[in-house]
C-alpha cells in the first residue's frame, strides 16, 4: 500500500472542514451568544438534520460499534434503538425548548433551568456537573482523532501532535464562526460519514463473502459462532436488564449540545421536520457493525476490539478506501467533539460566570468565545495527551449524571408542581447513587447504574416537591403556556 495516500486523504478532510468552518461566518459579528451560541436561531431543516445526526454519531460508530459487534455481538444494536428514541424526544421536547429560548431569551440549558426554578444556583450547578461529562466526552473524541492520525501516518504522527492538529483546526473555525461552523461542518461530516460507512461495509462484505448483501456474513456466524446473534452476547454480560435500562437511561440524557442545537433552529416546526427524518440517518451504523461481525471470523486474535474496522481495512482494502475510512472516523470524532466544546464554553460563561460576577449580556457573549481556547489548551489537550486509563469511567459517571437531571425537565414539560428543593434533592441523590453503583458496585443485578439512580431520584423528587413550595405561579404559567397551551393553573 502507498503509505502517503491514507494520510493525504485524512489531512485533506481536515483542510476542507477548516475552509467550510471559517467560511460559515459570512461577515457576521460573533460577539453575542445569540449569534455565536445559537446561530441567530436560523438553521433550516436539512442543516439541522445533519447537525444533530452527525453530532450523535461519534467515533463510537466507526470504532466502538464494530468493536462491540466483534466482542459482544447483536447487543450493539441497542445504540440504534436509543438513537431513534432520542429522535422521538427531540420531536416532542425540541419545539418547546426552541420556544422557551425564543420567548425568554435562553441560549443554554442551564439558563432555562435557572429561569424555570428561579434559581441561578440550580442552573449553575447543573451546568457545572453536566460539563464533567461533556469534557470527558470531548477528550475521548480528541484521543480517537489523534489515534486515527497516528494510524493513517503509519505511526509517524505522535498522539500529542495529533491532539494539537485536531484541536487547533476545531479552535480556529469554532472561534471564528461558532454554532454556524458546527452546523456546516457537521453537514459535510454527516454526508461523508454516510458514504464512507456504506463503502467500507459493502467492500468488506464483498471481500469476506463474495456478495454485496450482508446475509452471507450472518449465515457463517449462525453456523460457526451463534452466540454472537443473541443476548447476553458472546461475553455473557449484556442481558435483557442491561439492554433495557441502558436504552431508558440513554434516551433521557438531555446533553447540553442537543439543547443548543434545538435552539439554533429557524422555527419549532423545523425541529419537528428534522427529528422526523433523524432515524433514517442511523442506518449508517449497520454497515460498520457488519465489519465488526466479519472481524469475528477474519481477525480472531485482536487484542483491542475497537481497532477491528481499521485493522480489517488496513489488511484487506485499497489505500484510498483506508484513507476515506480515516477521514470518516475523524469526521465522526470531530463532529461530536466540537458541539461539546462549544456548549462547555457557553455554560461556563452564561450559567456560571454571568450570575457570579453580574456580567452584562455583551460581556458574557465575548467571554464565552474567548473561553474556548483556554478550555481546549488547559483542560482537553493535556488530558487527551495523558490518555488517562479511567477516562471512560469518568464519562460513564458524567453521562449517568446527565440522566439524573431528568426531574428538572419533567418540571419544564410535564408537571407544574415540581419545586426547586425537589429537583435539587432528586438530582443530588440520583448522582450519588449513580456514582456509587458505577465505581463501587458496578451495575448491580445487571441493571444500568443510571437507572438505579433514577429509581431513587424520581420518588424523592416527587415527594419533596409535594412537601415544599412550588415555584411562583407567574413563572410556571409562563413555561406551561408553551408546554401545555390552553391550560392554566387557575
Amino acid at each position, binding site marked *: 500500500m502507498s503509505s502517503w495516500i491514507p494520510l493525504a486523504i485524512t489531512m485533506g478532510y481536515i483542510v476542507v472542514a477548516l475552509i467550510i468552518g471559517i467560511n460559515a461566518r459570512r461577515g457576521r459579528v460573533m460577539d453575542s451568544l445569540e449569534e455565536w451560541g445559537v446561530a441567530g436561531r436560523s438553521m433550516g431543516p436539512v442543516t439541522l438534520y445533519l447537525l444533530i445526526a452527525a453530532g450523535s454519531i461519534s467515533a463510537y460508530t466507526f470504532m466502538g460499534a464494530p468493536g462491540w459487534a466483534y466482542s459482544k455481538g447483536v447487543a450493539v444494536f441497542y445504540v440504534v434503538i436509543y438513537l431513534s428514541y432520542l429522535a422521538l424526544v427531540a420531536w416532542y421536547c425540541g419545539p418547546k425548548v426552541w420556544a422557551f429560548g425564543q420567548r425568554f431569551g435562553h441560549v443554554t440549558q442551564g439558563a432555562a433551568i435557572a429561569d424555570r426554578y428561579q434559581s441561578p444556583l440550580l442552573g449553575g450547578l447543573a451546568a457545572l456537573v453536566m460539563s464533567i461529562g461533556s469534557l470527558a466526552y470531548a477528550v475521548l473524541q480528541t484521543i480517537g482523532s489523534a489515534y486515527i492520525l497516528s494510524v493513517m501516518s503509519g505511526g509517524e504522527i505522535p498522539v500529542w501532535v495529533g491532539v494539537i492538529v485536531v484541536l487547533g483546526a476545531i479552535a480556529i473555525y469554532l472561534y471564528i464562526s461558532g454554532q454556524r461552523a458546527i452546523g456546516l461542518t457537521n453537514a459535510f461530516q454527516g454526508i461523508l460519514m454516510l458514504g464512507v460507512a456504506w463503502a467500507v461495509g459493502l467492500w468488506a462484505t464483498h471481500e469476506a463473502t463474495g456478495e454485496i448483501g450482508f446475509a452471507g456474513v450472518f449465515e457463517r456466524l449462525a453456523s460457526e459462532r451463534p452466540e454472537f446473534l443473541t443476548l447476553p452476547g458472546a461475553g455473557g454480560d449484556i442481558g435483557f436488564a442491561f439492554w*433495557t435500562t441502558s436504552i431508558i437511561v440513554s434516551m433521557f440524557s438531555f446533553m447540553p449540545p442537543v439543547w443548543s442545537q434545538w435552539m439554533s433552529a429557524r422555527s419549532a416546526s423545523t425541529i419537528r421536520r428534522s427529528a*422526523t427524518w433523524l432515524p433514517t440517518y442511523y442506518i449508517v451504523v449497520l454497515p460498520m457493525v457488519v465489519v465488526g461481525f466479519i472481524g469475528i471470523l477474519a481477525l480472531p486474535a485482536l487484542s483491542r476490539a475497537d481497532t477491528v474496522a481499521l485493522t480489517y481495512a488496513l489488511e484487506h482494502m485499497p489505500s484510498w478506501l483506508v484513507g476515506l475510512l480515516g477521514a470518516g472516523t475523524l469526521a465522526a470524532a470531530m463532529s461530536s467533539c466540537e458541539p461539546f466544546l462549544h456548549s462547555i464554553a457557553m455554560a461556563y460563561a452564561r450559567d456560571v460566570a454571568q450570575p457570579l460576577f453580574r456580567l452584562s449580556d455583551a460581556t458574557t457573549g465575548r467571554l464565552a468565545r474567548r473561553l474556548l481556547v483556554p478550555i481546549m489548551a488547559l483542560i482537553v489537550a493535556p488530558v487527551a495527551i495523558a490518555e488517562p486509563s479511567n477516562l471512560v469511567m469518568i464519562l460513564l459517571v458524567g453521562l449517568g449524571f446527565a440522566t439524573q437531571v431528568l426531574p428538572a425537565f419533567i418540571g419544564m414539560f410535564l*408537571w407544574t408542581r415540581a419545586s426547586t428543593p425537589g429537583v435539587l434533592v432528586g438530582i443530588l441523590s440520583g448522582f450519588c447513587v449513580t456514582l456509587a453503583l458505577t465505581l463501587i458496585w458496578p451495575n448491580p443485578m445487571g441493571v444500568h447504574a443510571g437507572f438505579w439512580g433514577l429509581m431513587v431520584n424520581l420518588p424523592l423528587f416527587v415527594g419533596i416537591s409535594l412537601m415544599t413550595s412550588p415555584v411562583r405561579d407567574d413563572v410556571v404559567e409562563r413555561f406551561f403556556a408553551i408546554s401545555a397551551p390552553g391550560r392554566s393553573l387557575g
Partner: protein
Amino acid sequence: MKHFVVHPRSRRGWCLALAFALLISAGIWPVVAAFNRAELWFGLPPLAVLTYAIVTGCWLTMLIANRLLRRSDSDV
C-alpha cells in the same frame, strides 16, 4: 392553585401518545426477548430486524404526527 400533569387532550393526541409508548415498548424487555433467537430473518439476526423495524416505525409515526399536527393547526 391547581397544579396538573400534562397529558393529551384529544383522541388524536392520545393515539399519538399510545403510538410513542408502543414504539418504546417494542425496543425493551419483554418484547426484545421474543426476538432473541440464533436464527436469521431476511438474512439478518431477528434483533437486527427488530432494530430497523423500530427505526422505520419511529420515522413513520413522526411523519403521521406532523400531518395530524398540521391538520389541528397547533404548533409548539
